[in-house]
Each structure stands twice: as structure tokens, then as C-alpha cells.
């Protein structure tokens, strides 16, 4: 490999490169997502958020990731 590429950038580049192909294909093959499916997914997200909201976390608790300079 000629340069270091993060997996995220690579995924972005490849997904972007597929867009023209997908555009031509989309008209034939994609289908619209039923609103019920999206509503159900959003409801699940909301339900998880409500559960998290109710859970007390000590103020000093930091997220389970850290940055290194």
C-alpha cells in the first residue's frame, strides 16, 4: 500500500466511488423504506435513550475512551 489510509477514510472513499454506479442502479433496485420500519427504529432509539436518561452517573465519570496527544 502506497500510503497510510485509515479504515474510515477508505470506507468513505470507496462508498463515494460507488455513488455514480449506485445512482444508475438505484432507480431500478432500491425500494423506499416503509415509514413503519423507520418509525420502529427511531422508537427503539428513543426507548434506549429513556433508559439511559434514568440511569444516574457520578459527575466525575468520564466516557470509556480517551484522547492521546
Amino acid at each position, binding site marked *: 500500500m502506497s500510503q497510510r489510509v485509515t479504515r474510515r477514510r477508505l470506507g468513505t472513499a470507496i462508498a463515494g466511488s460507488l455513488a455514480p454506479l449506485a445512482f444508475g442502479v438505484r432507480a431500478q433496485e*432500491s425500494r423506499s423504506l*416503509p415509514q413503519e420500519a423507520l418509525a420502529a427504529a427511531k422508537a427503539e432509539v428513543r426507548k434506549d435513550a429513556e433508559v*439511559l436518561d434514568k440511569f444516574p452517573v457520578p459527575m466525575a465519570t468520564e466516557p470509556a475512551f480517551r484522547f492521546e496527544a
Partner: protein
Amino acid sequence: MAELSNDVFFATITELNAKLKAREFSAVELARAFCDRLEKLGPRYNALALSLRERAVRKAKDVDGDIKRERFRGPLQGVPYAAKDLLCLSGTPTTWGAKPYAGQVFDYDATVLRKLDKAGAVLTGKLAMVELAGGGGYRYAAASLTGPGLNPWDRSCWAGGSSSGSGSAVAAGLVPFALGSETWGSILTPGAYCGVTGLRPTYGLVSRYGAMALSWTMDKIGPMCLSAEDCGHVLRAIAGGDSNDPGSAGKSFYYAPQFARKPAELKVGFAPVDIEEWADPAARPAFRAALEALRGLGVRMVEARLPDFPYNAVAGTVISVEGSAVFEPLIRSGQVDQLADLKQIAGLKAGLDIPAKDYLKAMRIRSLIRAAMRRLFTQVDVIISPSTFGPATKISVPVDSGFTPKPEPKDRGFSDLGAAGNLAGLPALSLPCGFAGSLPVAIQLVGRPYYENHLIALGKAFQDQTDWHRRRPPG
């Protein structure tokens, strides 16, 4: 097919390596035989994504040359294997099991594939998976470019996911071992459903470089094999630090059974409610027998349970946010609509709208979970629980249609161990332990971080006393 005894296709890594060194057959003969079998039978289970026969035979020729010159590279030398199709191999399609990426080709190899090549293992193919490793959530087994993963024990049943092809290929003797991956259940579930031994390593022990990212903080790559010992051999080859992986722990793994703690030195935590209320009644005798078998090894069994946390909400939020962020270009471009499963499409879209405050709250609770699990492992050395509470589901029904106790037991026992273990980055070993009807079931052993040697040793001791891992599917 090449004329090798059927027993060869169900031999362990150790057995195959011995036969190769003894020149019972050459690496080329072995590679051709396994490639024949993978190409012929893989489609029967929708397990095969891509055959790599030519590459495999070329590699096998190199291996034969090395063996002839007595250049021995270890137990994996000459042993065929296949890899979940989220691991990239230079110049060949890596589809991630998903239609929008069907023609995707990378120009480099995943670290784990490079390491296995160096160990002399022979890559014979890429294996089918649930599209995008199921990160958006999925409803049906057909959520894959290659169709539903079919179970070699009963093809009307699911192989499990998301490492469907890895589970079924090992179970059906199409490869001696395979690489799978787990974010939340994707090694343990197909391992249990297909009756194979699966190892989910500690987060960061195995490089993710070259693997499709679903959740940066939860993805792990691990082996699926015919025995716990084989998992040790594969982990030895694939583990180790990698500067290309930001999540790499920088630690190595040396399979050292001689230094592992003896069963009698181990305190094993279990929750009776897991088996007596959460488990499918058809599977309970097998789970009870597994606990008795462990007691027979001399371990000290103590009742325990998970500390109280909203594990599923935390894991669901983390994976949703990270997965939707990874696939944001796919979602924004509309190509996400090409995926096979409507729930997956909806889940990925909904994940983009989760506010940062929810993700941060989940990650803060995750810190508390990690600390609580550390405290739990000062009380026990290993946790044991069913890998899944019942056997494989039918492919025609939603994947979450397995047995659910009604009403739900108040005591959650270790029923959330999948979420808890993955959130805390803990290793787990899934061991076949019997059958529910004609379908395999399995138990999982979970340890503190980097406890793999002890889990594998206990798993090997269990498998020395039982033969569930040697059973073969019909036909």
C-alpha cells in the same frame, strides 16, 4: 474431489499438522481437497463468498517446499482456513456481505491474514456474513448478499450471525478453522448454533486493520475452530500489537497451556436462573450436564450474577452511533436502501440522529460497567453461562424468535452477559455442550481481560472429558 478420508475434513489443526509433517499427504493435496469441498458444499449452506483456489494452491506449494526442507513454522503450517468476508485481501472482492459493496476491492491485506500467511496457513476462501455485520440491527436471516446462512445440522435453520459462513463452514468440515468477528454476539452465536468452538478475544488483542469497522470500540476478530486448543493455536498467530490499529492493546498472546491455572484452582461463577428460567427447556439438560462436567473437573462453582446496569441500552446506543457514523456516506447517498434487510436500513438511518449526549451517557455508563466487571472478577475467575439460551431458529422466522421466558424472570442472572462482556472488552470461549433436539447448544466461559490461556485450558479440559466438539452434522 481429491481422495482423502472423510476424517481429514473433521481433523483438528494439531492432527492435520502432524499428518502433513508425516507426509501422509502434501499441503497441495490438502488444499485442493478442502477447496473442492468448500466450492461444492459451501453454496449448500450459503457459506461461500469467494473461492481462492489458485492462491491457496500456490501457497500450499510454498508450504510443501518448506516442509521438505524441514523449515517448520508452527502448528498452522499447511492448514487450510477461510476468512469472514469483512477482512480485506489485496486484489480480491471484499463485499462485507452487502450489495452496495459487492465489487469493492482493496489494495492491501488485513493484518490477521498477513499474520496467518506468515504462519504458513493456507487461505482457501472468503466466507459469507450478515450484511455489514448486522450493525443496524436485522430481522431475518436473509440479511445478506449471499442469502440466509444455513445450518449444517438442519438447513431449515439459521447458522447464526453475523459470522454465518464461518460457523457453518467449520461445522460442515469445509475448513479446519475460520476467522469470524464479534461486536455483539457474532462469533458466539454462530459458534453455538453450528456446534463449533469460537473464541472472542479481549478487545485490542487482535488487530482490526483491514477489517470492516462496525463499532470502533467493540469490534473483535477471533477464531472459530473444532476445539479450544485449536483456538489457542490460531490466536497465537493472529494476536499482537499493530500500529495501524488505533485500538490495538500492543499485547501479544502465547498459547501456553502448561502455565494455565488448573481447573481446581479456578472459581467459576454461575447463575442457576440462567439455566432454570432463561434457557429454552429443550436445552436445559445439556446446560445442566455441562455444569456437572465442570464440577467433575474440580472447579469451585459459586453463585454469582451481573451487577445491575442497562447493558442492552448502552450496547445498542454505542453500536448504533458508531455504526451509523462509519456508514454515513452509505446512508446519505441513499445506497443504504440496497441492503437486504429493512430493519437494518432503518436502524442505520435512525442511528444518525442519535444525539451526542446519548452516546456520551452510554460511554460513561460503560466506564462504570468496566469497573464493575473488574470487581466481579476479583470474586470469580471465570463466568459460565449459555452462549445462547436456545438452539438455532428457523430461517423463515425473525432471528430473535427463539425461546423467551414469559414473564421475564426478575433475576437477570447472566442473561445480559453478551452485552456486558462486549462492552467491557472481555474474552469469551464458546464450547459445544450438547443438543436441544437435533440442534447443538453451547456454553460460554468469560474471563477478565487477557485471560485467554486460562479459558482455553479450562475449555480443553472440558473437551477432554466430553465429545460434543467432535460430533458431525448429518450428511
